[in-house]
């Protein structure tokens, strides 16, 4: 039997084990979050009021329909360790115990990102990461571009479908949600 040897790729410097260990030990002021995105450790400051308004507005409507959600859940994806602004799943997902700070995204129904001053990662790396993690729906509330994008049908490397709306407009969510997010800014 032949052992398949993984050749070290030219992106070796991006996946030095140090970055992952360092991510967990990083000492940050309150509100800051650190993620590992395509090999970079990305540190984002505490969100502003408008960001939290969107968070609360989306949260409220999903909760009212029986969905469970977290704003600080860590997910392992093929492109890094992400912490979505909202991780939405059934109760059973949150009953799992992996005893790790970043965990498997299996069972996540929807992730939501609300952009901050730097929208690049939300638009690009994280979109591809969520798609590769096979998370069925990714809602991007892109404040800078003043629109929302609902990505669906994750395929090999990306989402196959992107539904764009001007920000503030109702966002129809497909099954298993089957309702429309409306009036989601405080």
């Amino acid at each position, binding site marked *: 039997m032949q052992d398949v040897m993984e050749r070290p790729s*030219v*992106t*070796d*410097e*991006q996946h*030095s084990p*140090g*970055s992952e260990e*360092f991510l967990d030990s*990083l*000492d*940050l*002021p*309150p*509100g*800051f979050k650190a993620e590992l*995105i*395509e*090999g*970079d*450790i*990305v*540190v*984002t*400051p*505490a969100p502003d009021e408008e960001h939290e308004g969107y968070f609360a507005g989306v949260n409220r409507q999903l909760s009212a329909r029986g969905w469970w959600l977290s704003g600080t859940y860590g997910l392992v994806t093929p492109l890094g360790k992400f912490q979505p602004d909202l991780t939405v799943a059934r109760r059973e997902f949150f009953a799992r115990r992996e005893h790790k700070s970043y965990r498997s995204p299996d069972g996540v129904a929807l992730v939501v990102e609300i952009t*901050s*001053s*730097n929208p*690049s*990662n939300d638009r*690009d*790396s994280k979109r591809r990461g969520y798609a590769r993690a096979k998370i069925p729906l990714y809602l991007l509330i892109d404040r800078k571009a003043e629109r929302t994008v609902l990505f669906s049908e994750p395929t090999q490397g990306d989402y196959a479908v992107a539904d764009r709306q001007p920000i503030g407009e109702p966002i129809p969510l497909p099954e298993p949600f089957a309702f429309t997010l409306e009036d989601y800014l405080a």
Partner: protein
Amino acid sequence: VTKPIAKPEPADDWSEPEQLVDTLDLPLGYKAELVEGTIIIRPTASGGRLSVKMSFTRQFFRHGWDGVMVGLATPTGKFVPDLTVVDPGYWENDPGKGWLIPDRIAMVMDVTSSDALVDRGLRRQGYAAAGIPLYLFVDRRRKETVLFGKPEDNDYTVSVWRPISEPIPLPEPFSFTLEGFTT
């Protein structure tokens, strides 16, 4: 009686990324940069990437230029290029500590394979907005070099792509040709 150890008061609001980027306790071999309000921490060059960087660094030294790793405060962010090239007289007017204002930098260089900041052009645009005349980007993934020149407003207006092994003629004030990188 033990004297209480005075805890230094934070000089500024450390909850701001601008302050945090200077106070983060990084392990050796990492650099912190700031772009659009987000702090990006990534490893400095090592292994193959360091080999490419040093190959070019040696050539700059041979032609009388200094190559160092310093932090540059640009209009679009605080970046630490893999190599910042200055003439040896640069150090006589001590630029001081911390993030340098890149007004007397001859050239910067980054060696990478897949740097998200590079891919999105944010780093390049920062260098251009700072008026750094030349930016050499060595792309190990695509095995090519890109020499950017003539910064105007927020980007370079000239770019020359070459295979990574091909010599790179540098304009004034260098007026010598960098040998390409061969493994």
